[in-house]
């Protein structure tokens, strides 16, 4: 269980990105964070694995306070929280295999890993992960030779290597076309349901939110302005959605059955 308590983040330039945010995420949930661009979604997700240090508040995950963790503890916490990004954040010049293997950094011997040596088990695990996301034949390609959808699959495979208990996805499909969006979110859903990985995901499109979320949090200017269950969202009309979301709200108008 992840408990966020009174989380506040003020950037060095004084921007208040999060203000007194509190909510709880149960094990196995697919929580979607919605909100306008600049409303604090990325900041919130990055605070959870402390890529950004929160200014105030607590983040308690399975009774451990992440905000108080020492450097070593933080690395152990991070390795069981996978993260995927809008811009995929692969290392373009490295091979797909190397990119996926970096997901093991938190587990392997740090000295061996520096010379790009990973145990055989991990290499097999990496091939399995690539197989799971449907691109086993790309292992030896350079990452920048892949298409956007393939890159995000490598991102998922990298996160899978961490054997994560939780997955943070910061607008994972915002750089992809609608058909690919369903494909990628499909993988996340599968991980959520089959491997019981808790997913925290920020999304833009209403139909994607309705299709995949089990719970929704709406952010505006760093505050929570909406919380709803799966049923609440399904009944949400476009009008209501626009009220929470602002004028940016859009539908994809491509269903999963379209591909």
């Amino acid at each position: 269980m992840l408990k966020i308590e009174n989380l506040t983040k003020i950037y060095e330039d004084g921007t208040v990105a999060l203000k007194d945010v509190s909510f709880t995420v149960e094990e196995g949930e697919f929580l979607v964070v919605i909100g306008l661009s600049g409303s604090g979604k990325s900041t919130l997700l990055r605070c959870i694995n402390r890529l950004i240090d929160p200014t105030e508040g607590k983040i308690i995950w399975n009774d451990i306070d992440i905000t108080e963790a020492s450097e070593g503890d933080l690395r152990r916490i991070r390795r069981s929280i996978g993260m995927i990004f809008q811009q995929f954040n692969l290392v373009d010049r490295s091979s797909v295999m190397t990119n996926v293997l970096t997901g093991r950094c938190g587990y392997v011997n740090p000295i061996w890993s520096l010379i790009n040596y990973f145990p055989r088990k991990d290499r097999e695990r990496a091939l399995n992960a690539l197989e799971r996301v449907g691109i086993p034949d790309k292992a030896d390609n350079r990452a920048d030779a892949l298409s956007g959808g393939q890159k995000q699959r490598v991102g998922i495979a990298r996160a899978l290597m961490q054997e994560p208990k939780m997955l943070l996805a910061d607008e994972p499909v915002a750089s992809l076309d609608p058909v690919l969006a369903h494909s990628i979110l499909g993988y996340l859903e599968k991980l959520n349901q089959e491997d019981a990985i808790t997913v925290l995901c920020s999304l833009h499109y209403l139909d994607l939110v309705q299709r995949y979320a089990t719970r929704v949090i709406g952010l505006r200017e760093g505050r929570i302005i909406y919380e709803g269950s799966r049923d609440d969202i399904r009944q949400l009309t476009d009008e209501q959605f626009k009220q929470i979301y602002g004028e940016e709200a859009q539908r994809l108008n491509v269903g999963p059955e379209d591909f």
Partner: protein
Amino acid sequence: MTELIDPAPKVRSYLQSFLSLLIPGLGQAVAGAISRGLIILASILTFSGLTIWTAAQRPRFPDYGLTARAFLILLGETAALLLFIIAAYYLVTRTVARKPTTRAAVQTGFIILGILLIALAQQSLLNTALSADDQSNVYGITLVFGAALTAAMWLWNISDAGWVREDDAPSMNGLVFLSLAALIILGSRVTQVDLPKAVREYRDTEIILRQIVWPWEAAFVYEENNVEAEAKIQAPCPPGATGPEVNEPKDKGPWVVVSPTCGDLSERGTMGAIDFGTELTITGGGFVPGQTVNIRWENPIGNAFKPRGFGDTEIPASGEGTFETKLFIPDATISSTAQGDQIHRLIAIQTGEREFTGKLSQDMKLALQQMLVTIMMGMMATLVGVVLSIPLSFLSARNLMGSLKSTLQAFVGGVFGLVAGAWLGSMIAGLIASALGGLEKYPLLTFGSYIIFVLGGALLFYRLAGASLDWLGKRALPAVVARLITIIGLAAVGATIGYGLGIGFSYGIFSITHTAEFAEEMAPRTGAIGAAVGALLIAYYGYRRQPTDEITTGNFIYVIVRVTLNIIRSIEPLIWAIIGIIWVGPGPFAGFIALTIHTIAALGKLYSEAIESIDPGPIEAVQSTGADRLQTIRYAVVPQILPPFIAFTIYRWDINVRLSTIIGLVGGGGIGFLLIQWIRLFQYEQAGIAVWLITITVAALDFVSAEIRGRFV
């Protein structure tokens, strides 16, 4: 209304033209275009003034009056010439070439014609303006063309004044053109461009140039198939001396017989008159029939020369290969300390074909060897520079250092740990060094152990002390105590920095404003003041913050390393070479030190900029997997910076080899050093070899480095 749309047709005003003929710009001013008139006047005045000044700047001819007079005469003459050309132009365009296109062509033709005419007429124009004596002193081309340009402007100004109207904007084109012309004249003055001199004195260079451009004769050993015979002569001939044995004619091979073999030297009087010495009769045989025999004289210390003016020295051999001639013993300065018999040698020689042996000459071998030294110097400097600049570049990359944070109390503890660790490390390294037998015996080991132990100790204790004070402050000590320790620690750091700055201030400022002694006397006082101020300032800062507040320690390091690198980089490699020469004496080592220091700073900057421009996304991604700092660098940073690093390194290697030749010129060893020595000894062929080797190496390097870089980027 209509006036606005359809302005009245322009009417030529002869009055305005006339006014502008008298004073440039006056016609325009009268017409109401005052600024246009002013600009024209100013331009013409400036241009004339500059021309006169330039011509009068000849060192032996500082006479403005004369120059100005000559200029005015030339002005009139060139104006007449121009008027003639303009008249011709009108004649042609009105009668023959009437179409606008041909007119444009004709116009261009006439402009070229005008310039050519002035260039051709230059000498006769100058002859009327200046006496022959003055001419040699004046910068003729400047005067003639300056006058011609001024005349052209004047004429244009007259025609312009005829058409100008009140609302005409000042013509900027002319102004731009004039400023350019003025700049060129000024520039050529300042850099002392002197074309006539360059042309006049080119011939002296030609011989040397030829040697430098094609020096290969000196690069190889040639076998000379000379036919040669020699005879010994004693001179001066002391009483009782008989001289060396007289040669006998031989049946085979060349021979030369001289008699007598003992005689007196010629002597050269103070006025250059020669008092001839003993006359020698020379007969020879066995030479190649019909070919010239050359007579050469070699004095006792081994200098051979052609005894010009003492008899025939070039005698054709007869059909039987014999010759006969007479020669006075030439003059030769015999050292006053010379002892014993002074034996000279007379050499009769027929120079045959020179045969290429393919062997490298001594000079060529030396040049090749020094070229290698130079290349190695550049490579070593690059290698060492790369190794040292990589860690520095990480320390001076803002995006990496910005994430290096610690609490205030950890920082305070760390600084004390740093000092203690460095001290401990140096003690241990000192022990090891003395156990090994000192710097002289194992320099690299000693040096290395110092670096490892001092750096390692400092880092280890920085972390240890930082972590322990942090732990103590957070868990064990009462908040007040932690706070007190932090403030006192910060004050100590501030005092140290302030003390250093204070002393630096005294030596830096007082030694200039007062005397060195005064600075030395004041140093403790300014140091104390600095220490007090520093301690107070930083203690106050500590007082305002909490010991558990986070500060970006990385930024300190970033600033310190960056500033240091920038200072080092801004000092030219040549200066570093001079410092290196003072430090370790002239030679390749000094050059190596200079190049290495500059390479570290230059590459450190380039590398750190490459690091700063990387995509932060992968760093985030790798960090989020639980990777530690080194892993993050290995997997997120290194793959991104490798290509630019390789490119920069090769680029620098390229630069370093070039620089090392130049650094050699000031004493940094290698081929540059050799080159400058040869030039100073007037051995231009050898210098040519060095120049060629440098050129070939640099070109090859250019090619190779471009090739490698292309492969990586």
